[in-house]
Every structure is written in C-alpha cells, then in structure tokens.
C-alpha cells in the first residue's frame, strides 16, 4: 500500500521526452541562480508542461462553451420547429463570435447604490470556480490530463460549492430586489441539491474506491465496464441533481425570467454579464464531465486497449490518448445534449416543488442507494464474486452480471421507499394534495370575519 502524497501530491503527468530535452537546452541560457535549485526534468514536468496544457485547455473549453451557447439556441429552435441563428457565417457558426463582440462593446453599468467591490468580485468568483476545476478532469490517458490529485472528486465538489458564492454575492451587491430574491432562491436550491449530489456520489465511491479522477477511470478500465451498469439509480439521481446544480430549466429558479426579470444578474450588463454566462456554461461542461467520468467510464471505451494493441508499439500511446480524448468529448457532448433537451421540453418547477423534489425524493433515494449498494457489495464479497486487491476491485463475468442485475433491482426498494415517504404529496398538483388533507386541519381556515394570517 502506497500513500502518494508529499510535495508531489499535486503530481502532474510526466511531460513528453522532447519537451524535457528542449527545456534542458533552454537551461543553458538561464542565469545560474535561477536554475540552481531546479532540475530540467522538474521544470519541464511542473512548470512548462502544465502551462502548455492549461493554455490548450482554456482555449478548448472557451471554444466549447461558445459553441455550447450556439448548440443551445439551435437545439431549442429545432425543438420548437424554428430554424435558429443562421445569418452569421455558414449555418450560423460565427454566431458565438458575434455575441461575444456585442457583449464586449456594450456599456458596463454598475448601479449607483451597489456595493462596488463585491459587485465586481462576484463574476470573478463564478468564473474562477468554474475554470479551476478543469485542472483535475481526466481528458484522456497519459499526456491528456493536467493533474491527477488524490482528492480530485472532492476538490471538484468543494470548488463548485464555492461557486455558489458568486451568485449570492452578485445578487446581494446589486442592492436591488429581484437580484436579491434570485440569489436567495438559487443559494437555497444549490445547497439542497449539493447534498443530493454528494450523497449519490458516495454510492459510486463504493466501486471507484478513490477520489482521484484518473483512478476512477482506471477502476472502470481494469474491470472493463462502465459504472452506470452497477449504479443506475445513482446515475439518475446524479443527472437530476446536476441539472438543478447548474441552475438550468426545469430548475432555473435563479433566473426565472417570468418571475424575477433576470434573477441574480439583472443588474449586470456587458462584459460582467458575459462572465456569469460563460461560468454557467463552463459549469455545465464540468458537471457533464463528472457524470461521464463517474458513470460512463470517462475516456475509457471497452475494446480501446485491444485496438491500441493491434498498432505498432510507437503509435500505441498516441492512439490510446487520441481515442480517449475523443471518447471523453463524445460522452460529455451526449450529457450536455441531454441537459439542453431537458431545458426545452420540461416546464419550470414551482419553488416548493423544487425543494420537495430535492429533500423528499432525491435525498432519500441517494441515502437508500448508499445502503443498498453497500449491502449488494458485501453480499457479492461474501459470495466470492468480487475481490479487493490492494484497493483494486477484481471480478469475473459472474460478478459483473450480479452487480448489474442487483443494481437494477435496487430501483424497486428505492421506489417503494419514495412512495412511502411521499404518499401524501405524491402528486405535484396542489389541488390533488389539498383533497388529501382534511378541511378542518388546513393551514389557512377561510371562515367569515376571520382574516387568514
């Protein structure tokens, strides 16, 4: 058992050989006091290579975010039998650039009574929290991930929980009614659904056995399956909570246009607004990446190792990396499409329904799933279907079939539990709920002469 920590705890993947030699040559031109404490290998591994990766990732993700907005508009148009943006460039492909330029050259208004420091700080917090998380995502094997830290998943969860601050502070600092209401709603919503997300991830951790994002992918690679097979109920809870966590319809309480004008960013304009906008879409990318990593195997596709083994030795690593990045991008894209699809097909929840769904449906479902998954795992272990060798799970095909079937069957006890908990308020229709509560004990009694409290 090795506990990898220490100064190299934030270990980055080793840089390619050509970069090391390049840095070594460059060292000859640097003054001695600068290079005395630093070996060329360390400089390449910890300074030059990460900076290159970070630069590439920023460009890629910002482009992805820009085209995600276009995809959103296009998909919404198709769903509503419209054409969507098609004037700027071929098929409207330059629309994100046009939008960006428009937002950049707009006037940047700060309300007179706003708290100026916090007002400017809020979009920055949102943006930073959305982008810092990109550092630990596993885009692919070998060179394709920036860092692989021990607490990867926990890091992502904690940083995205800090991201809520951006919304709250933005709403508060505007010193205006609608933004404040939007901020309060969204903070309550995000805190509630964070609990559901955290709990549903716990049941996934029973199989992944690590917080490290690369480790999670490797766990699925060594088994040759995606964890969505073992953890189907957990996956459903995750997807629903993820939509709520990113403040998107049908859970877009933070910016419900028909109720709150624009929600927390009502007073923001121009570039500051676009920062909030980018952060929201970057959060979507991050959440879909977590979903793809935990449940859909990350960059792993069954059979990719076989394909790589057919190639000559020299190309094997590069081919595996390319396939991994492509698979990861496709999986993220699929989940992102699901998010967009959900936004344009479901009506918005009422606020009390939203809280009810979070605390009385998703939370018990996640808790019950932890208990059930742990029980299933222990039974499988007692039956000898699964072994844990130095933290790595090993199982034969019987074990895989057992966990898949048991994971699907776990749906039924969970549904029974949810049914029992919510038997009085199963229908989201308020009128149907009222008829189940006797008139004599209704909260508001409407008798003549007595004003309801």
């Amino acid at each position, binding site marked *: 058992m090795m506990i990898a920590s220490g100064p190299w705890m934030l270990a980055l993947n080793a840089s390619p050989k050509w970069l090391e030699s390049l840095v070594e040559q460059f060292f000859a031109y640097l003054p001695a006091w600068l290079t005395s404490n630093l070996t060329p290998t360390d400089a390449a591994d910890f300074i030059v290579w990460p900076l290159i990766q970070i630069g590439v990732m920023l460009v890629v993700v910002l482009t992805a975010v820009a085209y995600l907005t276009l995809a959103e508009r296009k998909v919404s148009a198709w769903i509503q039998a419209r054409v969507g943006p098609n004037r700027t460039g071929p098929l409207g492909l330059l629309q994100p650039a046009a939008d960006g330029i428009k937002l950049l050259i707009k006037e940047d208004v700060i309300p007179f009574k706003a708290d100026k420091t916090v007002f400017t700080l809020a979009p920055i917090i949102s943006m930073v929290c959305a982008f810092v998380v990109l550092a630990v995502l596993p885009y692919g094997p070998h060179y394709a991930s920036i860092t692989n830290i021990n607490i990867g998943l926990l890091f992502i969860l904690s940083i995205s929980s800090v991201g*809520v601050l951006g919304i709250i502070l933005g709403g508060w600092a505007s010193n205006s009614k609608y933004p404040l209401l939007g901020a309060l709603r969204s903070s309550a919503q995000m805190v509630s659904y964070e609990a559901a997300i955290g709990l549903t991830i716990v049941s996934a951790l029973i199989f992944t056995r690590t917080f490290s994002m690369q480790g999670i992918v490797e766990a699925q690679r060594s088994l040759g399956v995606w964890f969505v097979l073992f953890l189907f109920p957990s996956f459903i809870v995750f997807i629903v909570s993820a939509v709520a966590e990113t403040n998107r319809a049908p859970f877009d309480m933070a910016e419900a246009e028909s109720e709150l004008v624009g929600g927390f960013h009502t007073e923001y304009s121009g570039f500051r607004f676009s920062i909030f906008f980018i952060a929201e879409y970057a959060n979507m990318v991050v959440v879909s990446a977590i979903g793809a990593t935990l449940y859909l195997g990350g960059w792993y596709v069954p059979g990719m190792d076989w394909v790589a083994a057919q190639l000559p030795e020299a190309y094997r690593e590069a081919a595996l990396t390319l396939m991994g990045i492509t698979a990861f991008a496709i999986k993220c894209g699929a989940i992102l499409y699901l998010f967009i699809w959900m936004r344009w097909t479901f009506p918005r929840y009422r606020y009390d329904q939203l809280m009810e769904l979070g605390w009385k449906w998703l939370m018990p479902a996640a808790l019950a799933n932890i208990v059930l998954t742990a029980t299933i795992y222990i039974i499988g272990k007692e039956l000898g279907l699964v072994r844990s060798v130095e933290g790595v799970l090993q199982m034969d095909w019987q074990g895989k079939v057992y966990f898949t079937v048991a994971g699907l069957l776990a749906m039924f006890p969970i549904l029974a539990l949810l049914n029992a908990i919510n038997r009085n308020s199963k229908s989201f229709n308020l009128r149907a709920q009222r008829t189940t509560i006797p008139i004599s004990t209704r909260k508001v009694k409407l008798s003549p002469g007595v004003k309801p409290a």
Partner: protein
Amino acid sequence: MLLVGWEALFFWLLTLSALFAAVFTVSTRNPVHCALFLISTLIATAGLFLLLRAEFVAGAQILVYVGGILVLFLFVLMLVNTRSEVENPFNRQDKAGAFIAALVGLALLGAVTYTQQRGGFFKTKPSADRLAIENARPDPNAPAGVISADTETLGVTLYTRAVLPFEIASVLLLMAIVGSVLLARDRRQEETYD
C-alpha cells in the same frame, strides 16, 4: 514537518493571509464583508492543511465551511437588516470583548510556549522512510487504483479508531436538526400533523 523551500514560502503566505483576513473579519463593519474575509481565512487554512498532507481535511474544510456554512451565513445576513450595524459605530460590549480576547490570546500563547519547551511542533525530524514516502513521486504509468488506498484508509480509520467522535458529532447534528424543526413549527402545523 520541516519548512524548506517552496513549502516555507507557501506556509508564510497562507499564514499571513489567514491572519490578516481574520483581523479584517472582526474589524470590518459590513457583515457581508466580514463573511467574505472569513471565507478567505478558511481557504487559507485549507491551504495549510494541504501543507500538512491532509488533503481530505482540506477538501472537506472548503466543502463544509465555505460551501455549506458560509453560504448559509450569507443567506441569513441578506435577510437581516444590517444597515444599523454599519451606521452605528458604538459597541457597548467592546471592553468585555477586548478582555476575553486578550485572555484567550494569552492562553494560546502559553500553550504554544509550553509545547515549544517540551519539544516543539517542528523539532522532531521525520524518519528516513517517512521522508521517502513523502517525497516519492508517483509513477505516472502506475496500474489502476494504487493511490486509491487513501480513501480506504480514511474510511477504515473513520469507522474504527474515530468512531466515537464521529457518532457524537452525528448525534449533535441530529439534535440540532430536530431542535430547529421543533422551533420552526408553529401551532397550526402541530395541529395539522398530530
């Protein structure tokens, strides 16, 4: 832990920012600004946990304190009218507060001096094999799950050696939840559900 090189730099950076943010937390008049400085303090402390190789504690600190508790702090602060606090510069309890703060500060100073005389925090040199583990660079091509032992170790420790504090904390939180529900329910709701 011996402070050398980058570690020393990060230690002083994080410590000083935590201390300054802590001072601003109590000296700023606007409660929301206070909460923001408190967040800075907590994040700097999480960085210190990282320097102590306690990654999980650092992550949990940010997740629980910054993401959960401070968000609820801000939630409450927004619902309360804080203007009177900002505009009224007098605090009649400042003398008592200063006295208690001085007392706690002296106690802390005494504890630090006492520990320092008995051997100190940083005087024990780590053994050679401990240093080897700490300075080991993980193999980038290591097989799956080698580092996953961390989570397993944490879980096993939490539910065997630390099970009593864990349970006590759970019961405490449960009591707080039951109490708050009891306080929040009014008489009409009691009648409805009884």
